């Protein structure tokens, strides 16, 4: 069973700019993924305001019976989140790696327009390698 179910990237204005699912569990169609992304964007924003802690930066982990959702928001406001098997470890570092890949292969691509959906082959390629590596590391544990 795949440890990671899916990966989402949301631009700072709340639009889904990247979605990819891994394995059969939790697969959804385009409309559902868009809906989920905007839902998460709003929930994240609301959580920031509802939190009793000053300087809260929003939900980082949502745990449910059938999945965990890890979210990382960069200081520029782009959100990266993975939906994975409950209890999967090291997702924060994976998200960090994905952020670096995004800066290298998406933002440095001169033909990528900011805030638009990501269609960059190099990003896809390096992303699947990173996820693959993560999976191998998981099997080895």
């Amino acid at each position, binding site marked *: 069973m795949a440890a990671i179910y899916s990966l989402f990237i949301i631009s700072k204005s709340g639009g889904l700019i990247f979605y990819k699912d891994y394995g059969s569990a939790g697969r959804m169609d385009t409309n559902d993924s868009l809906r989920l992304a905007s839902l998460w964007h709003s929930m994240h924003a609301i959580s920031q*305001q509802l939190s009793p802690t000053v300087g809260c930066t929003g939900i980082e982990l949502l745990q449910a019976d059938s999945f965990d959702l890890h979210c990382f928001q960069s*200081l*520029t*406001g782009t959100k990266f989140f993975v939906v994975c098997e409950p209890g999967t470890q090291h997702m924060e570092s994976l998200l960090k790696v994905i*952020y*670096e890949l995004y*800066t290298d292969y998406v933002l*440095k691509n001169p033909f990528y327009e900011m805030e638009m959906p990501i269609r960059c082959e190099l990003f896809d390629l390096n992303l699947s390698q990173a996820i693959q590596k993560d999976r191998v590391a998981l099997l080895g544990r």
Partner: protein
Amino acid sequence: MAPLPARSGDAVFANIEHVNSELFTLTYGAIVRQLLTDLEEVEEVNKQLDQMGYNIGIRLIDEFLAKSNVSRCVDFKETAEVIAKVGFKMFLGVSATVTNWDTEGTSCSLVLEDNPLVDFVELPDTCQGLCYCNILSGVIRGALEMVSMKTEVTWVRDMLNGDDVYELRVKLLKQVLEEYPYKDDE
């Protein structure tokens, strides 16, 4: 898990891939030269360089944040230090010093003693008024805008015009609060 605050960009600089500095310097020279040919007016070239820098800055900031491990700055003073010590080091290989704070703490000078962009440059008389490194001010403006700081960045001293150092004046115009809803024009 708080990442260690990076006080210098040396470690990051050592870890990222580099290009030959001459290639970099000469490429930049070629761009400026081409802009002068295309636009003819020095003022227009300055504007164009600034715009190009801005476009670079709004993307570069993410790479900076992803690779430098700096966390949120508490105030503009810290921001300026981070730009001078980490940002410049990471992308240009030199660091700057921060001086000349005004009393409100909203504007300061970044002083560069060494600047790889100008290694072989001598400004001819026909190019008076050209801010050769204007791309740098654009980069800073663009990068800071993406982390909700509106700034104005201008060159005060330029070694190509006979000054002894490069001095960039960075002025914080306003800090846009990161609160929802974002206004439509942002």
